[in-house]
């Protein structure tokens, strides 16, 4: 099978890979919708769809059929060309990014199957294409010729630009730690011994487990939720403020395309997160071949696990993506929507400085590692942290001294007006 694949021309190879790995994305979307509805209702103490098929599994299919046969209304004052193109534009980035996701190992017999294109600018490609996602929203918002849609489009473009920066910087940290932009190289780097300590060789160096990687992961996670316009960052489609934002005027299948685009994007971003921070297709952060070599007693199990990890890699990867989606849904069930100014200040004043500080720390960390080994890396990381903290303190003292920071904040929020006295019913007349 693999031999056959290698002999084909690159275009056919790519087509085969697309058929094997990207097409299922489309088929997964109904599953995701079902999962979201069921999980959400469970979290909200409801039952959720359970009538169509076992556990309501066929509900999304039924919905799809319904959407397909609904009347497709095109309002008369829309900008027609853009109106029709916009949903397609919204769908495009998800599938384009899907092209670089490594679904399985890029060595050994499975090497030639995935990713679809192992471009050597992988992460940049992800950033570039994800930045195109805004066009679908903005164009549909404009073309609808509807105030609410336009507002949704405006909000979305401001939001995406703000969060792209922090996202880019957090990914840049990981690029520095890896020394390569390729997705496959990033996974390879995460299969090195943990923290670069050789005696920990049986543990994998998933970036989530490194201190700087953890910070990057948090920043990336928040940014990816914002980039996909999901709660709590779903201001572009806030139902109670601007109806449904950019897709107010879309009905029938065109609406379904938006819907599909949103879920596909969620899935793909989860995939990027899994690849960059969670060791990609690896099931567990354990190098089974090292275990087999070091602990003879466990050699059999380790080898079995190694084979299992390798050959079923796409399934583990899918599992990680599903975890990411579950996280999205969990957030949606938990957090209320942000206010616009909160959204902006979170992006510009918290995430971006955090990501940049992390960037500095990683740089010093890597220099320490290159010069003095892993110990030097930790020392360098601490040094970097100290530098960043000192800068931060300086800045804070500077703003305090000149008086603007504090004054502005006082002017905005009258503290006494915001405190709420909780009344404890068990204590007579008492507040706590």
């Amino acid at each position, binding site marked *: 099978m693999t031999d056959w694949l290698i002999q084909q021309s690159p275009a056919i190879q790519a087509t085969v890979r697309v058929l094997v790995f990207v097409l299922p994305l489309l088929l997964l979307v109904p599953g995701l919708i079902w999962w979201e509805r069921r999980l959400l209702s469970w979290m909200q103490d409801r039952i959720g769809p359970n009538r169509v098929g076992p556990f309501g599994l066929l509900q999304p299919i039924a919905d799809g059929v319904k959407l397909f046969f609904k009347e497709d209304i095109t309002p008369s004052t829309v900008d027609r060309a*853009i109106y029709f193109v916009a949903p397609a534009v919204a769908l495009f980035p998800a599938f384009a990014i899907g092209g670089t996701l490594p679904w399985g190992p890029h060595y050994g017999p499975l090497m030639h199957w995935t990713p679809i294109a192992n471009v050597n600018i992988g992460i940049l490609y992800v950033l570039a294409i994800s930045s195109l996602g805004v066009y679908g929203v903005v164009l549909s918002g404009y073309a609808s010729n509807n105030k609410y849609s336009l507002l949704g489009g405006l909000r979305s473009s401001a939001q995406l630009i703000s969060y792209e920066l922090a996202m880019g910087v957090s990914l840049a940290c990981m690029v520095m730690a890896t020394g390569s932009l390729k997705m496959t190289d990033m996974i390879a780097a995460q299969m090195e011994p943990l923290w670069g300590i050789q005696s920990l060789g049986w543990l994998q160096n998933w970036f989530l487990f490194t201190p700087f990687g953890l910070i990057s992961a948090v920043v990336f996670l928040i940014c990816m939720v914002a980039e996909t316009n999901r709660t709590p960052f779903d201001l572009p489609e806030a139902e109670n403020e601007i109806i449904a934002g950019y897709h107010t005027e879309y009905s029938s299948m065109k609406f379904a395309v938006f819907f599909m685009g949103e879920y596909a994007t969620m899935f793909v971003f989860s995939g990027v997160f899994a690849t960059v921070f969670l060791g990609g297709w690896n099931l567990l952060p354990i190098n089974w071949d090292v275990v087999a070599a070091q602990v003879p007693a466990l050699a059999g199990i380790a080898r079995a696990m190694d084979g299992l990890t390798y050959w079923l890699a796409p399934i583990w990867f899918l599992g990680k993506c599903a975890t990411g989606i579950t996280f999205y849904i969990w957030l949606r069930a938990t957090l209320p929507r942000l206010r616009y100014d909160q959204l902006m200040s979170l992006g510009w004043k918290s995430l971006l400085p955090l990501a940049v500080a992390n960037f500095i720390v990683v740089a010093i960390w890597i220099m320490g590692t290159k010069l003095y080994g892993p110990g030097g890396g930790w020392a360098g990381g601490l040094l970097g942290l100290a530098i960043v903290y000192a800068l931060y303190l300086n800045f804070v003292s500077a703003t305090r001294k000149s008086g603007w920071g504090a004054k502005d904040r006082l002017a905005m929020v009258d503290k006494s007006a915001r405190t709420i006295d909780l009344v404890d019913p068990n204590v007579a007349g008492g507040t706590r």
Partner: protein
Amino acid sequence: MTTFTVLAIVAVLAALGVVLFSSPVRSAICLVVNFFVLAFVYFILNAELLGITQIIVYTGAIMVLFLFVIMLLNLGGPQAWKERREFRTVLGFGFGAALAGVIASQLITHFREHSRPFADDGYGSPQAIGRVLFTQYVWPFEVASVLLLVGIVGSILLAKRKL
């Protein structure tokens, strides 16, 4: 070559669209398409990083801001254009066409013989760009950062009502 022809046709059509469309939003969208296609031209020239930077910076950031501003100002449609169709517009078109004609007639014939239209393998890669930026072009690189700093400070100074 065929790839290039297709890309070039799309790019030129998009560029024409930028100029000829009367609605600012459509012009901007055409510009987006143009930038996007240009990135692919860079790709086939073996300049991957340049191409992807083109998409990130122009398509992904600058043009979004363009659209943002156009939508925010809600620039009018066709009427705005009709008012300006006076002799100066015609004159401008004339001069522009003349300039393009002069440049094209003098230069294009000579470009056709030089046909090795791509960089050496690996010379458009991130490693190569990084190497060049931090060796030969390190001083312009730093100066560009000063330029950005000036831009940031300047825009804050101009935009903030109260400092």
